[in-house]
């Protein structure tokens, strides 16, 4: 059973602010799902290679390297929550500016 403290730690890693009632609910629900997944631990998978992709192809080379127009600045900024017209505007990363 995951504790509320563990849920807080995971939420912090995942950059999710949770309310207290959410923390308690997720502790319960995530525990139930992980218990369900515990049946995987009982299997013998010795020597079985992991599947990361079902395709036989790996490390595909890029086809040519032609110069093409990039995304225009206005298009890149059109959905931004805050801009100064030329750049994204975000809160300061460091305390002392």
């Amino acid at each position, binding site marked *: 059973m995951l504790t509320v403290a563990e849920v807080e730690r*995971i939420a912090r890693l995942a950059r999710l602010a949770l309310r207290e009632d959410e923390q308690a609910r997720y502790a319960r*629900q995530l525990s139930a*799902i*992980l218990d369900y997944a515990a049946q995987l631990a009982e299997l013998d998978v010795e020597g079985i290679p992991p599947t990361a992709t079902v395709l036989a192809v790996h490390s595909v080379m890029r086809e040519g390297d032609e110069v093409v127009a990039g995304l225009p600045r206005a298009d890149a900024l059109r959905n931004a929550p805050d801009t100064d017209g030329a750049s994204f505007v975000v809160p300061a990363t460091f305390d002392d500016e």
Partner: protein
Amino acid sequence: MLTVYAARERLRRREVSAVELTRAFLERIHALNPRLNAYLTVADETALAMAGDADARMARGEDTPLLGVPIAIKDVLSTRDMRTTAGSKILANYTPSWDATAVARLRAMGAVFLGKLNCDEFAMGSSTENSAFGPTRNPWDETRVPGGSSGGSAAAVAADLCCAALGTDTGGSIRQPAALCGVTGLKNSYGRVSRYGLIAFASSLDTVGALTKDARDAAIMLRAMEGRDPLDSTSVEVEPIDVASLDQSRDSLRGLRVGVPAEYFGDGMQPDVAQRVREAIAHLQALGASVREVNLPRTHLGLPVYYIIAPAEASANLARFDGVKYGLRVQGRDLIATYMETRGAGFGAEVKRRIMLGTYALSAGYYDAYYIRAQKVRTLIKRDFEQAFSHVDIIAAPVSPTTAFPLGAKIDDPIQMYLADVFTLPVSLAGICGISIPCGFDRDGLPVGLQLIGPAFGEQRVLEVAHVFQQTTDFHLQKPKWHGQPRSS
């Protein structure tokens, strides 16, 4: 009921113009969508402009299998200058500057885009109840879910609110709603259709496909979208679908070897769902196919494997929603707080649940025990199918253990909800193809789906068998009865 094929025939014979056809669909959408909530965006002006362009192209003598045909698109696929929300508050006002490749190919062929269709948030769910914009209702019974995550797509096709719809399938999200809404839904082999422009959920599993009114339309739509795309390094060039050969396939399945996995008929099945699927398999046999049992012994492991791998990939993919470049921003006291507040407020309950599950499975100390182990069992699931396909050409099975369930019935119990996909998850993990086609009704008159599963890139055979089934049955032609008809129909 207007299929893509029939619409194209009528347009070609000048019985109707693309603008007239589009106007008729828009009227029907405005009459019925308030009840169903299948569309999140109805693009009246864009659709009529695209239809006008299609009419002009036809006047110049152009002809494509989709020219002037009104379709609609699941809202996880990017559409140029048309709002794309992924069913999430965090993208409620997001408008892409480019088309997904699948969308671009349909646009180039002259298809008309009626709008964007509701879905579970970021395609995570089995009922469309996880949409931030309210659930879609099942046209067969408006108190029930349409399935998910492509529930808006399935409902729109079932209610004739478009000729066909694009969907996506990561663990069953085309096949399960197709079954619950009584339409045809093809999940393509991984890599057959480019994922470029699809808002990513689980990149090793995500596929783009169509929900349609029959198997021929499924073939037409796949032919239009498939093939290698330089913008998606996992897209694959394969022998293209031959749509014309479907019509040459006789009403016989002589020589076809059909496998039936006992593991797909176990406990927890709704009895009349199992019964309808067994009758459908008997019908395949009556058409000349030979039926034998096959073993897929790891079927029950599909669910735990999927709910480790898919959330792990999702937790990485959804890291991009940080309130900086696009989407919602909730300002916090510093940058980290801004990330946390934005994501806490912008994501719904299921998305947060999966991000945390994935973060946990990938975190130090758990990575080998959960993520790598799940990937190893994924290998075993894939091998089970390879083994089965050394004996049979196609596998026939149910799509989902039940028919459409009531709204709200499973929303507070994640595992019960996940079990709705227990028969679709293994196909996704193996990266192979499967189609859901209507095969009858339960005691309440709700549609039942038959799943026909093929090996990787075996879509042609799957479509041919589905087409013969539909040439000799009429389940796919039956429509929901509307209680209180809309004025326009």
